[in-house]
């Protein structure tokens, strides 16, 4: 299918000969984004104390905003007056907003879901808010992100009741139609449908098959990364990328751990988001290939190395682990410094993957990466199986 809309063009540049990994340019109204891409989450129109200039220096090309929070504060009126979130926060590159639907899970006590939409009680002023697909798109049209998400009926990933899951999956498809109908700015913003169905392959297949018939420029895989077993997680991702149109970007929601990124890129995912890198930074944890360093630990007291000597971020160029050890959880500067490093870490990992895909060395890179984490070759089954399913055998040299 040819993309007729101007709001997104997706050009695949190279594909891995073994796995489903690919490198592409996703041309959006505000920026040309290189995929696979990690999108840091700036919930309320800001990224954890970092200036937008710093985010540009970190080579962030697209970041997330959160519709539910932004709709409350600063509110639609202010965003309208400013001319959208880009201008409000001083960010000239691409933005993506979620639909506000995820808050159904995180704020479930406050929400009542009906066919019409989701009824929230505002945690800010206790007023009742009805979030319908139309309302979600109206707010997102006003925020003005390059990519907006459909409102979906979200059920906790580990939820077991088949009827409820089926209802949510089918409702998500009905809400997609309503979202697309309500969309006022199709030439500037792209609605991504969200594949639902939790861990049920049959529902997920149906959801994905339905979504690919719509006139949209990309897809999201939702309802995962919510506490399910990894062995249950990857087949759902794989099912999604198998069915979803190869000529359009595929976005896996809420995934951002290094090993998950690696596996899911191999499975053909192009976009990721996760609060983890910046959240963990606030607790004094710095990301490294092998996992994370908790800089609060006494072992770093006199450690004059940077967090990661291979890292090119301004934190690693200028600060030692010993210094960060002294100020984590005491000074806000520590959050900023570790956030910078953690975002740089994610960006570097994605860049390295893109380079390896382009050079045809992606399977080799994957093997090297997993062997570094598990030098004893005692790989968890899901890593082994998922990679094997796309032709990368990490057990053979």
């Amino acid at each position, binding site marked *: 299918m040819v993309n007729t809309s101007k709001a997104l063009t997706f050009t695949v540049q190279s594909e891995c000969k073994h796995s489903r990994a690919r490198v592409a340019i996703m041309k959006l109204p505000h920026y040309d984004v290189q995929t696979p891409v990690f999108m840091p989450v700036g919930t309320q129109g800001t990224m954890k104390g970092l200036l937008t200039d710093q985010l540009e220096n970190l080579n962030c090309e697209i970041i997330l905003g959160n519709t539910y929070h932004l709709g409350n504060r600063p509110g639609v009126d202010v965003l309208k007056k400013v001319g959208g979130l880009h201008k*409000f926060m001083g960010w000239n590159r691409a933005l993506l907003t979620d639909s506000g639907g995820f808050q159904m899970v995180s704020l479930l006590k406050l929400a009542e879901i009906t066919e019409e939409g989701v009824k929230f009680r505002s945690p800010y002023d206790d007023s009742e808010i009805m979030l319908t697909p139309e309302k979600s798109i109206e707010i997102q049209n006003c925020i003005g992100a390059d990519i907006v998400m459909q409102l979906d009926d979200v059920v906790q990933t580990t939820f077991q009741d088949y009827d409820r899951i089926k209802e949510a999956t089918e409702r998500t498809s009905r809400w997609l139609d309503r979202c697309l109908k309500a969309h006022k700015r199709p030439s500037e913003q792209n609605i991504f449908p969200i594949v639902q169905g939790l861990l049920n392959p049959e529902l997920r297949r149906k959801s994905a098959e339905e979504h690919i018939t719509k006139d949209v420029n990309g897809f999201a895989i939702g309802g995962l990364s919510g506490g399910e077993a990894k062995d249950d997680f990857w087949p759902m991702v794989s099912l999604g990328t198998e069915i979803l149109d190869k000529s359009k970007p595929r976005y896996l929601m809420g995934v951002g751990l290094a090993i998950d990124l690696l596996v899911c890129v191999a499975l053909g995912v192009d976009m990721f988001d996760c609060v983890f890198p910046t959240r963990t930074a*606030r607790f004094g944890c710095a990301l490294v290939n092998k996992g994370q360093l908790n800089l609060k630990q006494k072992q770093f007291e006199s450690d004059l190395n940077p967090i990661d000597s291979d890292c090119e971020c301004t934190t690693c160029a*200028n600060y030692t682990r010993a210094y960060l050890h002294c100020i984590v959880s005491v000074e806000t500067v520590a959050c900023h410094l570790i956030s910078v490093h953690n975002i740089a870490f994610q960006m570097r990992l994605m860049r390295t993957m893109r380079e390896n895909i382009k050079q045809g060395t992606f399977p080799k890179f994957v093997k090297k990466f997993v062997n570094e984490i598990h030098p004893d070759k005692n790989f968890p089954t899901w890593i082994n199986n998922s990679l094997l399913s796309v032709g990368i055998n990490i057990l053979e040299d």
Partner: protein
Amino acid sequence: MRFSIKQTGCGGERIGYLTGFIRSPGAEIETPTAALFTQGGSVVNLTAEVLSKVFSNTKLLWLPLSNSINLETGVKAQNDGVAKFAGLQGHVTCATLHSLSEDTPSGHFELDRAPLWTKNGKRMVSADRYMDVMEIFKPDIILAIADGRTSLNEGSKRISKAVCRSNSMLKTCVNRYMSSKELQKSSLIGVVVGAGNPKKCDESLRNILTHVDNLTGISLQGILDGPEESRDIDSETLKKLFEKVGEALPKDFVYILEGNWNPSIILTAVEHGWDLFDGSYPLKLTNTGVAMKLNFDVTKENDTLYLLDMVDERYKADLKPILEGCECLACKKHTRAYIRHLLNTREMLASVLLSIHNLHHFDQMFYHARQHIASNTFAVFKQHITKQCEMVKDFPPNRYKGSNGTNIPTENQAPNIKRRNL
């Protein structure tokens, strides 16, 4: 470090240079100026990367041990001084025991030891121990350890003890200074204490004069005991004090004033020959969600308040920068509405942007002060600023008047981050 006076104005005000820093040979600081206040060795709210976007020149960092003593192990391991350890090499540092504007318990002094109030509680510090830390921290300027936290209306017995203790501690500091090559790479500053009692203050001044050859300047303490109430001191009292101290001591000393004083008092001190300030004023504003916007143009009458309570609902949809024409990063890129939103949502970027603006603007105040000294028009400038300060006597937010910053709106969301009172 050398202090040279380049030009004096009509009053006691002067333009000077701090140069010849042994550890930062090329560095040059033009005075009068304010230091940048640090916590844990970092300029509060600003990483080295962001700081370099705010100031391209060398700045003086104000380093109270109360919030940085926990760096000791690391600085010692690296053995290259506290500025380098905190990622701020190239800037010069001035170390002291406490920030004079911190609220700390009173008393707790021992015969030859002073209490150091850290976030982990009290530590008793002798003059020897203090100089041990200085040998490790290697700041460019060392304020001698002293018992300077007494208010002007303190009882004479307390003041008497403070002066006596400070004199003996200064002696130890000077002895240690004289016998250490490492310490001699720094400049030692004497601390004037006991300002509440003229006789005792004279004693403190006389004592400083006995060490005059080993000192580069003085810092005037003994005015405040920390709590906010003691800051309501009228400018006449301070003027007399500035005169007295200035007359007693050599003119070529660097004169330092610590404390969270408003611009009017600061310029009064400048008028009496004071050169350096500790930078706690803009930090206090930032911590309380307030932005400053003094009008520096003496040809224009000013009819708006120079302080903006950025938390106020009125800025919700205000698309102007904090101060039109301001060259700081925050004003060039962001609106009042955005900063208000960040404060309202308790996002860390609020403090970053307010720090950027307030530090830049406060620095600009000193720039303009120097310009006016150079053109012999300082009195006009001071009058112009004083008028604006008088307008905000009843500046509304209570949290701004409050004795500490515990209920401030800029409290960031990071867990376990306790903001120190300032």
